[in-house]
């Protein structure tokens, strides 16, 4: 009986491995991403990552994160930077490439792991959803507006300005009054 | 003064045609040991239950019962619960709680006794009954004898003045039963406790009783000191059926010309025979067992254990039984006799050795084939055989399984029922039958399978002397049909009459094996009471009839 349970658990773990595939990369390999050089005729977008709202809600922040190391003084994790927009790139692809290039930690919930049909960004630079109060998390704007889609379903155009913002109040503190949830949820 | 006085007590169950008790008048002296006996259904249990107000059955009654000069109905509830103790037949179902100590305390808890009092009394009783070693055990872990002793002790803590016991030893093996009776005797002797005991195994209780109450059909057949019971019964009816149920010494006395006082015990019986028949020549030794006939069931070097780490239960059991032969295997409790039958019946598998049924290895019987037309096992508790609401429905079912045609089915049921004399029982619920009736109906169910080999596990457990005699007749009948019968039992008296061949099972093997008269003549202790009475004169006399024949032969 006991043994059966153990075997079952091991089998489930193994199955998870198999289903998700097993591609193991070393740290250096992973961060060794190629960023396309910007040329005259390449389409580009601008991307920035900010967490200004945390500075205003310092008391609500998880005590382990109360350090400049995790929350920069000016609230800027990634300066507004221009990136090449490859054909078919979604907001998620761009974020993923940018964080990888700058070795910024990022964790997401894959498309297969949730019911929204889109990847969901759980944390960037160790700042996670709920890290700063129960209404906190990551969201993004495109040209200042909040698209109602998940980030892997939104495909930006040439010249778009994408801003990833940390909110401590479901977006209300960064100008989203529509009441829609984070990242189109 | 009389502890109980019963005046003209009659009782009838609702919707019954006859009185269960009719016009009973008797008195029980304080401090006496009274044994009640009689055929099943004679009203013993009803009478005993009438004496315990809490258990009195519903129905129409007339007459009075006085306890200590006071009408039983007027006795206070507390006094009635405390002073009149009642032990039921089945050791298992009357245990209420899961722990031994809790069971002991249960009655006193009901009385509202404070913890300190309960602690003291429980401690005292546990010491008196030698329960201290299993005081903290679960009641389900106890053996049958321990359970019944616990039931007795848990009544004794309430300090009763009188103890009523309804066949308390019927589910126990002989050794546990003797222990239990000895405890009762001790209570009677040392504490002056009044005891009313219904019992059908009279060998041990008869000599220690002050009075024996023989009942028949709801009335009193005799209420006498043990030495005069036999005479009283004979005066009433020279062929009184109860005469056959009396202890061996009394039956021997009854069978020969009755001179002097009636002996009650083996010791008295020996002296009695020595005084009067020591001149008789001993009988001719019976012939030794001659193997012959076609073997029906063979066990060859069978080894068995319950699991790898446990010791062997069977160590090379070897025996064979021929067609039409009755083979009795005797042995103590828990020696593995039942396990051996289970193996023979294919319920368990031996890890070494062979079992051959009609010359074919057990393994080669597929599915239910073995149990159809070949072999049937009657378990120790015949109740477990029945699954339906009436005996008849159970019979019908087994016939369906056997795929008899409708006509064949009716014929089979009729002939089997007629043979075992159970026609009137067919419409009843199996659980409402007495032990002996259940046994017969269960046997009938087995016979519908048309077995050639019949395995009986403790068939005499819980049945009275008459049912035993009937069973004996049935076994003799079945033998004539060529059915091989293997019986496993503790009951030496039964074995010596039922068997063509007896064997002793000990330490996982069959140690000796011979015709009953030679088998018991060889044993000193493990033999019948009649043989123990007469063995110094005629070692080959094993049954009461043998002894009587020996005495008569000399004249």
């Amino acid at each position, binding site marked *: 009986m006991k043994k059966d349970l153990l075997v079952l658990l091991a089998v489930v773990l193994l199955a998870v491995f198999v289903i998700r595939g097993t591609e193991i990369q070393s740290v250096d390999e992973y961060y060794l991403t190629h960023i396309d050089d910007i040329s005259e005729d390449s389409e580009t977008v601008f991307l920035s990552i900010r967490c200004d709202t945390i500075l205003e809600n310092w008391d609500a922040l998880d005590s382990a994160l109360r350090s400049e190391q995790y929350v920069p003084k000016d609230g800027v994790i990634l300066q507004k930077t221009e990136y090449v927009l490859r054909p078919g790139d979604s907001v998620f692809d761009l974020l993923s490439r940018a964080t990888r290039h700058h070795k910024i930690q990022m964790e997401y919930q894959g498309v297969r792991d949730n019911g929204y049909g889109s990847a969901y960004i759980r944390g960037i630079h160790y700042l996670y959803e709920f890290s700063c109060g129960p209404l906190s998390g990551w969201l993004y704007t495109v040209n200042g507006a909040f698209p109602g889609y998940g980030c892997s379903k939104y495909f930006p155009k040439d010249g778009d300005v994408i801003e990833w913002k940390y909110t401590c109040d479901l977006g209300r503190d960064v100008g989203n009054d529509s009441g829609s949830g984070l990242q189109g949820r | 003064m009389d502890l109980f006085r019963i005046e003209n007590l009659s009782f009838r169950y609702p919707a019954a045609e006859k009185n269960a008790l009719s016009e009973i008048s008797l008195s029980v002296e304080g401090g006496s040991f009274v044994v009640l006996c009689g055929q099943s259904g004679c009203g013993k249990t009803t009478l005993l239950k009438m004496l315990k107000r809490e258990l009195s059955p519903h129905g129409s009654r007339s007459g009075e019962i006085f306890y200590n000069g006071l009408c039983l109905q007027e006795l206070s509830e507390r006094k009635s619960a405390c002073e009149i103790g009642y032990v039921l037949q089945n050791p298992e179902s009357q245990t209420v709680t899961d722990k031994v100590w809790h069971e002991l305390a249960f009655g006193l808890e009901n009385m509202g006794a404070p913890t300190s009092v309960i602690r003291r009394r429980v401690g005292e009783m546990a010491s008196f009954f030698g329960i201290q070693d299993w005081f903290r055990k679960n009641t389900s872990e106890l053996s049958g004898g321990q359970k019944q002793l616990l039931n007795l002790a848990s009544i004794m803590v309430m300090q009763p003045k009188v103890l009523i016991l309804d066949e308390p030893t019927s589910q126990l093996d002989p050794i546990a039963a003797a222990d239990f009776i000895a405890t009762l005797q001790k209570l009677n002797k040392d504490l002056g406790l009044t005891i009313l005991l219904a019992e059908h195994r009279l060998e041990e209780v008869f000599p220690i009783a002050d009075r024996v109450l023989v009942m028949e059909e709801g009335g009193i057949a005799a209420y006498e000191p043990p030495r005069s019971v036999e005479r009283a019964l004979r005066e009433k009816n020279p062929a009184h059926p109860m005469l056959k149920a009396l202890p061996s010494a009394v039956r021997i006395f009854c069978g020969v010309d009755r001179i002097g006082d009636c002996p009650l015990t083996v010791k008295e019986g020996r002296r009695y025979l020595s005084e009067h028949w020591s001149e008789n020549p001993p009988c001719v030794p019976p012939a030794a067992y001659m193997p012959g006939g076609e073997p029906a069931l063979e066990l060859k070097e069978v080894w068995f254990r319950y699991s790898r780490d446990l010791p062997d239960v069977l160590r090379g059991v070897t025996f064979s039984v021929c067609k039409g032969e009755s083979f009795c295997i005797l042995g103590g409790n828990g020696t593995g006799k039942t396990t051996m039958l289970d193996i023979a019946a294919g319920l368990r598998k031996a890890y070494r050795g062979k079992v051959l049924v009609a010359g074919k290895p057990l393994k080669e019987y597929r599915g239910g084939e073995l149990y*159809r037309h070949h072999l049937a096992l009657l378990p120790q508790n015949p109740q477990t055989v029945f699954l339906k609401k009436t005996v008849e429905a159970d019979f019908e079912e087994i016939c369906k399984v056997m795929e008899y045609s409708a006509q064949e089915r009716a014929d089979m049921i009729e002939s089997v029922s007629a043979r075992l004399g159970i026609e009137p029982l067919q419409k009843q619920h199996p659980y409402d039958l007495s032990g002996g009736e259940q046994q017969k109906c269960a046997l009938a169910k087995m016979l519908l399978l048309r077995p050639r080999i019949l395995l009986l596990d403790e068939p005499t457990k819980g049945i009275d002397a008459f049912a035993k005699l009937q069973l004996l007749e049935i076994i003799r009948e079945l033998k004539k049909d060529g059915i091989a019968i293997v019986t496993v039992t503790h009951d030496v008296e039964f074995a010596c009459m039922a068997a063509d061949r007896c064997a002793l099972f000990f330490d996982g093997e069959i140690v000796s094996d011979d015709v009953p008269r030679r088998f018991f003549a060889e044993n000193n202790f493990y033999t019948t009471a009649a043989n123990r009475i007469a063995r110094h004169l005629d070692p080959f006399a094993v049954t009461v009839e043998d002894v009587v024949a020996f005495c008569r032969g000399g004249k």
Partner: protein
Amino acid sequence: MKAFGALHPLVLFCYFIAVLFLSAFTSHPVLLALSLLGAVCFWATLEQGGGFWRSMGYYAVLFLLIAVTNPLFSHNGVTPLFFLNGNPVTLEAILMGIDIAALMVSIIFWCKCYSLVMTSDKFLYLFGRIVPKLSLVLSMALRFIPLFQNQAQRVGRAQKAMGLYAGTSYVDKLRGGLRVFSVMVTWSLENAVDTGDSMRARGYGLKGRTSFSLFRFTLRDGVFLAGTAILFAAVLAGMRMGYLHFTFYPEVAPVQTALAAIWCYVCYGLLAFLPFILETEENLKWIYSVSKI
């Protein structure tokens, strides 16, 4: 045996509640390590011999499985070791996995100890105080279950020996099982009639029933209960004041070494090892007294 098990059920119950509560509501690795060690040591005194090592093997594997599960699903932490399908497997996540494994396995061990020490009669005693009728009913049920199982087995075997429902098909087996069950219901009723008779014969139903038990609350029990309470309160206070706060993400926090924190560790250690200390003390006493003889 069983110096600890011989304590009053109330003390035992409070002790287990305290330990389980503290283990379940902390993620502090020091506390969990103490809890796990304490539980395993205690369990070792309860279950000696081969059973111990076999179980230890089993729980070691379980521990590992739980420990590797966390880094597969959680990717937080500043020290990535390698990347699995584009997700970092971090040192912090692995350490947290070990921490969770310690939490779960220690709770399992405490529960195992609980079930060995708090036998049914102790449990019944505790709750029988609150509802006396219920405790009797439970006690009767506990007696009845083995009886029922036994009889059901006997019936099943008797049927099998008649070749009924012995077929290999599942339908046949199920039908056989149902029939046996239905007759067992009848049997239970018959049995209950006898039990009822036996209860009435012994005056059940009279007013003013008391409830007897073998347990006595002694001074020793009082001391032990007070000790448990004090240690529990101390650790709880430490928790409330934040001395026992610990985080794994994004970076493993340092173990606090303030004096108050160390006091908390000591208190918790004492609490977790109390049963083991008690058992060992008794064992040593025995060895000592035997050697003197």
